[in-house]
């Protein structure tokens, strides 16, 4: 019984914590994000397994986690509202070369972050050539160029 309870509790705790962290955090943007993800994994492992290192316990925990995950994806495909609530939606951060400062501040994205995405994905060096910069659900920034 406790294997299911442990897995369920940890799933929901991690879901809430990652929602608080926001989509930009832990998306492996910097080396430290990657290290942090490893540490979170280590800390979670103990709580999930407890002092029971049996194969049965591991299987029960994996079964529970996958069942919750599949359950959520089914809810998301059925309800557009739930999909938005659980995964969020994309947000426009630059419109016609003009940065939307308030949105960027709320989303904790700087102009440097946008220009980094612009350089790496499109080879663009100035903001005015960007038609749209969109913060995606997974925390990455998509760049759409202005027609020259």
């Amino acid at each position, binding site marked *: 019984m406790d294997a299911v309870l442990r897995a369920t509790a940890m799933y929901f705790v991690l879901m809430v914590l990652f*929602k*608080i962290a926001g989509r930009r955090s832990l998306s492996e943007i910097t080396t430290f994000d990657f290290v942090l993800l490893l540490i979170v994994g280590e800390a979670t492992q103990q709580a999930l397994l407890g002092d029971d290192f049996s194969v049965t316990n591991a299987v029960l925990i994996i079964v529970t986690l996958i069942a919750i995950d599949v359950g959520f994806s089914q809810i998301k495909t059925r309800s557009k509202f739930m999909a938005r*609530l659980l995964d*969020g*939606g994309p*947000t*426009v951060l630059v419109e016609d070369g003009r940065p939307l400062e308030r949105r960027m501040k709320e989303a904790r994205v700087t102009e440097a972050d946008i220009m980094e995405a612009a350089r790496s994905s499109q080879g663009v060096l100035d903001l005015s050539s960007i038609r749209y910069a969109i913060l995606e659900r997974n925390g990455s920034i998509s760049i759409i160029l202005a027609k020259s």
Partner: protein
Amino acid sequence: MSIDEYASRTHPIEEDMRLQRHVWRFERIGWVVLLVVIALTLGGLFSKGPLSSVEVSTPDGNLSVKYERFNRNGAGDDMIIRSTGRPNEQRDLVLGKELLEGNSLESLNPLPGPSRSNGGDLVIPMQADGDGVATLYLSVRSNGIGLFRAHVHIDGGQDLPIPKFIYP
């Protein structure tokens, strides 16, 4: 400009800025909640800290227990039980069964003589020194969850409640 920024775009993507602003507010409030949790942890709400580490004693002062009021399931901690009375006497310490339901005793020092049970309670003999003091060092591991209203007393002495809350 501010009204413009918070309006939902339909091109190039469909936005829901009302929900998005709720999400951002949730992130801000969540950040404060995380700080509060860290502050409470430093204060000892989740074991080991000023809120948790206490020393309680009976009104007559003959029995005192140093222990953690809060602990977490599976974590170990130490208890120090000190009793005073007549010099060199042998006295029986009674650990209430509630304590043993939530914790398993991992070690007792000094090694006591033969202990026995009494209606679910554990009776441990203690040998007092020349000053009448007997001290028992216990290391316990929490294995229950929830509030355990534990008691200890010296046989024939005053009862000392040592409530303990164990987090999952």
